């Protein structure tokens, strides 16, 4: 994979937030001044109680929401000055994974992943190759023709991961990716994340899964009441499950 070749961990700043505030139109304040630096190739857990601002933090990175105040720089792109019509090009560099997978139910596994490449006008030959590569990576090569309903939850999440990374994004964001999965399946998903991370992709993962955070030790950012209250390398989950 092309990202893997030139990557040196900790060298290049990937995400930088300075003094970021977010108040929604309905008056709810989600973030209260966030400062953070995340380098290329880092694996970061975002933890904290429900409603603390984790999701908002994540949604800022792929410009689903815009900060009320402060600056966000993603891979040298300043989001505060990013024109709306340029947002799609930011998102081609940020793969996103959700708790509910967000797959298209009528398309096969292969088509679901290819769809992500078709809409960015990739050539058919490249699409075929990339989809097969990524299916191999997530271990679903033999299920390419299945539709999502014929798969287990874990398999569906692997399809959604495959879709998120098929375009070789520099950053992968996952919002509670194991939230709907049983423990065994969750470990399988984590192995895939670790493998993607080993190839140099920066991973930001919001989670409530205490066991995973405490076992697979990575950087932990704890968000409470819209503030970062803890930022530790090889940190602990730190809350009662």
């Amino acid at each position, binding site marked *: 994979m092309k990202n893997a070749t030139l990557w040196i961990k900790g060298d290049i700043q990937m995400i930088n937030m300075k003094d970021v505030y977010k108040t929604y139109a309905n008056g709810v304040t989600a973030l209260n001044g966030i400062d953070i630096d995340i380098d290329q190739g880092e694996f970061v857990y975002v933890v904290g109680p429900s409603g603390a601002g984790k999701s908002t933090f994540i949604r800022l990175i792929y410009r689903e929401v815009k900060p009320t105040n402060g600056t966000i720089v993603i891979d040298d792109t300043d989001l505060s000055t990013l024109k709306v019509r340029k947002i*799609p090009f930011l998102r081609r560099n940020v793969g*996103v994974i959700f708790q509910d997978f967000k797959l298209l139910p009528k398309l096969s596994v292969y088509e679901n992943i290819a769809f992500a490449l078709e*809409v960015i006008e990739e*050539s*058919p030959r490249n699409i075929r190759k990339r989809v097969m590569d990524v299916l191999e990576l997530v271990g679903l090569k033999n299920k390419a023709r299945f539709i999502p309903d014929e798969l287990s939850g874990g398999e569906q999440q692997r399809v959604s991961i495959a879709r998120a990374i098929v375009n070789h994004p520099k950053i992968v964001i996952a919002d509670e990716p194991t939230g709907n999965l049983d423990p065994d399946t969750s470990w399988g998903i984590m192995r895939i994340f670790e493998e993607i991370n080993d190839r140099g992709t920066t991973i930001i993962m919001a989670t409530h899964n205490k066991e995973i955070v405490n076992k697979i030790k990575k950087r932990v950012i704890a968000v409470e009441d819209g503030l970062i209250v803890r930022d530790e390398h090889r940190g602990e989950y730190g809350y009662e499950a």
Partner: protein
Amino acid sequence: MKLRTTKRHLREGTKNIFRNGWMTIASIGAVTTTLLLVGAFLALMLNLNHMANGLEEDVQIEALIDLTAEEEQIKGLGTTIKQMEGTESVAFTSKDEQLNQLIEDMGQEGSTWQMFEQDNPLSHAYIVKAAEPNKTERLADKISQLDGVQEVNYGQDVIRQLFQFNEYARNIGLVLIAALVFTAIFLISNTIKLTIMARSREIGIMKLVGATNGFIRWPFFIEGMMHGVLGSIIPITAVLTGYYYLDNNLKDQINYAFVELLPFNPFAWQLSLLILLIGTFIGIWGSVMSVRKFLKV
């Protein structure tokens, strides 16, 4: 845009036409109704205008001569008019000729006028044609001031009435058409809204993986355009066949010189093209309206 992408948009847009079933038919029906009226109205308006202009071209001045005028004076008047600036031709018509013409024109009812043959109440007249139609009024004014001219007629009332009728017809027609165009646009934008809502999940994913708004918009744009184009098929057929029959049959049935339709070729073709363009415009506008509202980032 790449050819492959263009094909994809066309395919997606066409698929939606069938997916939306009855709503598509309602939209297309609205466009069809609108365009049928637009077509009929435009054909009527343009022809009335054409006739009015033709009439203006044909206009001639009828200068009635005083009943008391002597023959000498009448001849002198003829020469004077001929020499006036802007006169193209002058022809004398005696009161007997005019009475005969009148009796002939009136047909059955003309016989009642025959009793006037002994004591003709009409005047001798000069029929004057102006060199330039739009200077008719000025020439008529000058002639009316000549000695021995009792009265001047140049059909001003007929032309004025025709133009006025044209104006009324146009205003009523425009209001009607505007209302229909809006109905059609509203129906189309509603249909496309259905498509967008049915595919909101797909659109969400497209946005997530970095599809440009233009890419997302195109299929809906094409769907709207297709509504317009499909909706113009029946109106265009109606215009072409209807005008063809009108053009062929009216010629033989109505003998008034000024009822002269615009020729089928090229008028009917131009009108068809115009209908197609209006239909396409309605379709595109309808889709743009709904897509803009729903695809905000």
